[in-house]
């Protein structure tokens, strides 16, 4: 009896908001994502790290159906149980900007140069909240204030080229919030901005996440940024998830040799100065992936069993690693 009650409760509010299963994305014959599993829980802040080209952005563009037709996407992406891959365009249009919003790396070129920024925000309000012009105008102003654009009354009537990069990213965030999404995907939201502006934008993302209770996916190659904002972190390498854990756990006890390498390559903020340790070699070309673990050629601990493709396994509570050597290494540090 108690089990069925729990079941019913779980069914009414499934904890997993987005569920990605075995996602494969290829451009021509070049694989970009090679079998990715991922779950995003309601309201959590999930960080996805990895170097350029590891498939972290492509994963989410594929999930939203935003890749060009030259890409082939296979697998399954479910939003609260609803399959997104292959969904009808009309269905995707109500979900995109409505339940899932996304902001991009370069805010200025992500906004249409011939429309006023206010118009672009109002468009999202009219689409997803059915507001008339007057209501949308008032709500757009409120959103501009919420994301911290000063002198919003004047700025809604400006064009993207008349605003700074940081302000344009705030406009993008306002536009993303217009549909009151369950999840905001921030794809390297601060990479194109100055260091001081970066901090402000991250703070803003943290603030809106806290206030709205939406989930946040922060895609970044900056471990520091992710450590600060995210509860859970996934590390991607060559189109696959290699390690996933609570942020504190991952940074304190990394298990995958790639994660260890990334952390060793970071400078310490305190303590004696030391030489940074780079990861040897470079990411394999998409056309020339090794048969087994893609990190093997660069791994300091490569063994014969690494020629088999490692699955993502839970080695500690909520700590998943895709490395056949990890349990052994962990047992005998």
């Amino acid at each position, binding site marked *: 009896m108690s089990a069925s009650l729990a079941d019913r409760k779980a069914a009414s509010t499934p904890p997993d908001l987005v569920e990605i299963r075995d996602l494969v994305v290829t451009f021509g014959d070049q694989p970009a994502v090679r079998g990715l599993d991922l779950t995003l829980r309601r309201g959590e802040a999930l960080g996805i790290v990895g170097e350029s080209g590891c498939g972290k952005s492509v994963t989410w563009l594929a999930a*939203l159906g*935003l890749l060009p037709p030259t890409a082939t996407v296979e697998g399954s992406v479910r939003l609260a149980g609803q399959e997104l891959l292959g969904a009808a*365009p*009309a269905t*995707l*249009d*109500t*979900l*995109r*900007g*409505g339940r899932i*919003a*996304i902001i*991009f790396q*370069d805010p200025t*070129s*992500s*906004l*249409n*140069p*011939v*429309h006023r920024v206010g118009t672009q925000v109002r*468009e*999202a309000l009219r*689409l*997803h909240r059915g507001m008339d012009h007057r209501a949308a105008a008032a709500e757009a102003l409120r959103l501009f204030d919420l994301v911290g654009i000063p002198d919003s009354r004047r700025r809604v009537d400006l*064009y993207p*080229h008349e605003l700074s990069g940081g302000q344009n990213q705030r406009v*993008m965030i306002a*536009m*993303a919030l*217009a*549909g009151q999404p369950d999840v905001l995907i921030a794809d390297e939201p601060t990479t194109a901005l100055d260091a001081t502006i970066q901090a402000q934008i991250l703070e803003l993302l943290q603030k809106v996440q806290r206030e709205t209770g939406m989930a946040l996916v922060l895609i970044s190659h900056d471990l520091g940024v992710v450590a600060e904002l995210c509860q859970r972190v996934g590390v991607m390498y060559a189109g696959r998830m290699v390690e996933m854990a609570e942020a504190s756990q991952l940074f304190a006890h990394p298990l995958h040799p790639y994660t260890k390498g990334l952390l060793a390559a970071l400078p310490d903020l305190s303590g004696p100065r030391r030489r940074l340790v780079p990861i040897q070699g470079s990411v394999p070309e998409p056309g020339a992936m090794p048969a087994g673990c893609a990190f093997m050629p660069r791994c300091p601990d490569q063994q014969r069993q690494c020629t088999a493709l490692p699955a993502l396994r839970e080695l500690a509570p909520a700590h998943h690693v895709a490395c056949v050597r990890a349990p052994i290494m962990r047992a005998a540090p």
Partner: protein
Amino acid sequence: MLRYLALRLGRAALTIVLVVTFAFVVLRLSGDPAVIIMSPEAPQAAIEAFRHAWGLDQPIWVQYIDYFSAIAHGELGQSFRDGRPAIDLVAERIPATLWLTIPALCLKLLIGIPAGIHAALHRNSLTDRVVMAGAVAGFTVPSFVLGLMLVLLFSVELGWLPSGGQGSWQAGILPVITLGFGGAGILARFTRSAMLEVLGQPYIRTASAKGVPWARVVRGHALPNAAIPTVTIVGFMVGSLIAGAVVVESVFSWPGVGRLLVVAVSNRDLAVVQCILLLVATTMVVSNLIVDLLYGVLDPRLRGGRS
């Protein structure tokens, strides 16, 4: 804004002066109108008298200054042939030319722009390939070849349409198609590449990402941006409304400005040629000016002197 406009107008005037000067010099270096009009066998005294009567015995710079001061007084000279004012000769030909070029322009716009947009939206599809093949044919086949082929098919073989002249409205059909086809090809190609460029921009992805339906992304986000480069080409076509049909008018014996120009050049009828060139330069410069002002309307980044 006013200062910008004044600057533009000044530059436009300078362009016209340069074109007219160039035409003036070239025409006077390319043969003696007296000899051509009077025939080379005419007595020397008669030729001298003709030269004197038209001021051709003056040094070229004196003729040049006289010419410009005449223009300043609204005087564009008389035809050597029959002494009628050149402006009247040209003006009575303009309607005939516009009868061809305006419908041809509509044809270019109505075929070229939708075809280009369609090809861009269905890139690499069969229709894209067909449209692009047609476009390449449109602007690589010279208009006199196309014109003659159409005459061969529709006038000689099928007998459906007259091969030339201005007798009936049907006579205009073949020249309009000849003029329009090439222009439609050019416009389709430009529109397609402008659209493809725009469709690859991040803001198009943003529009899709915020849930704008695709048809609205195309209409509201892509087209206004793709219009900017396309307007340049359309402006060029509007600028050549007066003089764009020289070859086609000759092929179809259409009594327009283009044919008048050909006849006037071969006769060294200087006043008429210069009058036409002045008209052509003015329309081209004016349409360029309109295009420049349209840029400002279409693209807020190009608006100068924002308050």
